[in-house]
């Protein structure tokens, strides 16, 4: 019985949640908000029109590019700032000022710089994920057990060798955690990013379905797809945390 609970309980709660949703819609006599089966039909409609797959690919492409750029900038920048104190003193105020600005506030700037092609949403997704990655990478370097650095220096490691053989592997568990969090944020802002006049993607689907005829079944279908794909992305990136080279950093969570 106990062994089945971790599988059984989520299924029960999802069924309960969907039933509650259906009940509330029926009782409220609304014409606008869809019932669960109508959302499933809407997903079927998107598949038969041949747009669902294209929209998912378009959104994943933008998030993938924006997030990868953020990781390529944020990880090295964070590690460097964490290691060289004067660089941190110089750069950190700029990071701390830019960090609280919502990516949505950047939309006018993004349109000004990149017009309305794919680069604008990619830029917004990059902005949303680069700061958490940078800040966590700084913290990762600052939290290294001093004994690892001292042992490495004792073996004569300096400069890039010290970085490659000790600093980077020592920081890797925390870096992966920060990438996971940043991936969540990047996926979160895909809707806002696709509000800019692109004409594909799950975010565009939601805005377009609302504007063109109040098709709330399509709106909720888009929302559901975003949720499911977000779950899948998190599952994928979680798999990185099971590698032996980083597993030591998560031992308390086994």
């Amino acid at each position, binding site marked *: 019985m106990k062994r089945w609970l971790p599988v059984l309980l989520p299924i029960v709660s999802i069924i309960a949640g969907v039933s509650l949703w259906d009940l509330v819609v029926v009782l409220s006599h609304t014409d606008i908000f869809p019932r669960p089966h109508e959302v499933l039909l809407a997903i079927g409609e998107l598949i038969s029109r041949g747009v669902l797959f294209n929209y998912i690919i378009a959104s994943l492409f933008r998030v993938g590019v924006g997030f990868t750029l953020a990781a390529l900038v944020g990880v090295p920048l964070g590690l460097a700032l964490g290691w060289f104190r004067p660089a941190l003193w110089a750069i950190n105020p700029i990071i701390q000022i830019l960090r609280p600005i919502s990516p949505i506030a950047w939309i006018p700037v993004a349109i000004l710089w990149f017009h309305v092609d794919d680069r604008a949403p990619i830029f917004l997704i990059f902005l949303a994920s680069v700061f958490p990655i940078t800040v966590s990478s700084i913290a990762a370097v600052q939290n290294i057990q001093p004994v690892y650095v001292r*042992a490495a*220096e*004792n073996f*004569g490691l300096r400069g890039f060798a010290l970085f490659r053989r000790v600093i980077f*592997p020592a920081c890797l568990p925390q870096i992966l955690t920060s990438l996971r969090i940043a991936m969540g944020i990047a996926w979160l802002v895909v809707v806002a990013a696709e509000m800019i006049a692109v004409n594909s993607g799950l975010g565009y689907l939601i805005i377009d379905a609302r504007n063109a005829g109040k098709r709330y079944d399509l709106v909720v279908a888009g929302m559901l797809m975003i949720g499911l794909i977000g779950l899948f992305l998190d599952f994928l990136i979680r798999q990185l945390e099971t590698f032996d080279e980083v597993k030591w950093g998560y031992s308390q969570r086994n």
Partner: protein
Amino acid sequence: MDKKGPTIQVRGLRMNFPGKTAPIAVLENIDLEVFRGEFVCIVGPSGCGKSTLLNIIAGFFEPTSGEVLINGTQVSGPDPQRIFVFQENGVFPWLTVEQNIGFGLDQLSPQEKAPIIQRYVDMVGLNKFEKLYPRELSGGMRQRVEIARALAANPDIIYMDEPFGALDFLTRLKMRTDLTRIWQEERKTILFVTHDIEESVQLADRVIVLSPRPGKILKDLTIDLPRPRDLDSSAYLETRDEIFHTMGMSLRVGSDQDSPGGSTAIESGRPSTASL
């Protein structure tokens, strides 16, 4: 290099740590010589600065005044010829046992590394554990990995800072036996810091006894007992008692006699800065 001369020389060494109002004197007037191939233990009460002394000798800290010479050359920092074994275990958790042991052999090819790694895996008794990660090992085994990593780099000197402090009593006894055997095979110079008087008498050729903070050398005692050491022999017990008395401690738990200076002085004052 003079083979007969001391390999480690400490001259007029003092160390102060910054305090809230005035600097705190941690070590005072330390003069010390260690000869090639010797096994020397430094004992002293908690917070006496023995660990600080070892860190200065190893080049991790700079002394307030005085100097440390290795083979006649002043120490300016840590060096692969002198490997430090850390109290808190410095084995890298992202590397396997064999990758850790081979860490100091990076300039060698894999074919050259393999037999060296195997030799030290055998020496510390970690066969069949080569592919495991440190998190899969016990505390004693992790400490063996660190000792093997130090030995594999073939240093002249090994510094050990309470390496068995976190281990249970039986594991500690076994580690001491094994360390003595390894030292007899390899004949490295070992400078070993401990607060455990029995440990020092079991291991060392010479025991340096430090006073409570600020640490001064109270006694430099040659341990002339043959190895393997009989822990029941009267000579062992006499040597051990001599050190206890030097440190002003009674061997009778609960008695208030025969404790010149009082054992309370031993535990007094343990600033976090001094227990580095």
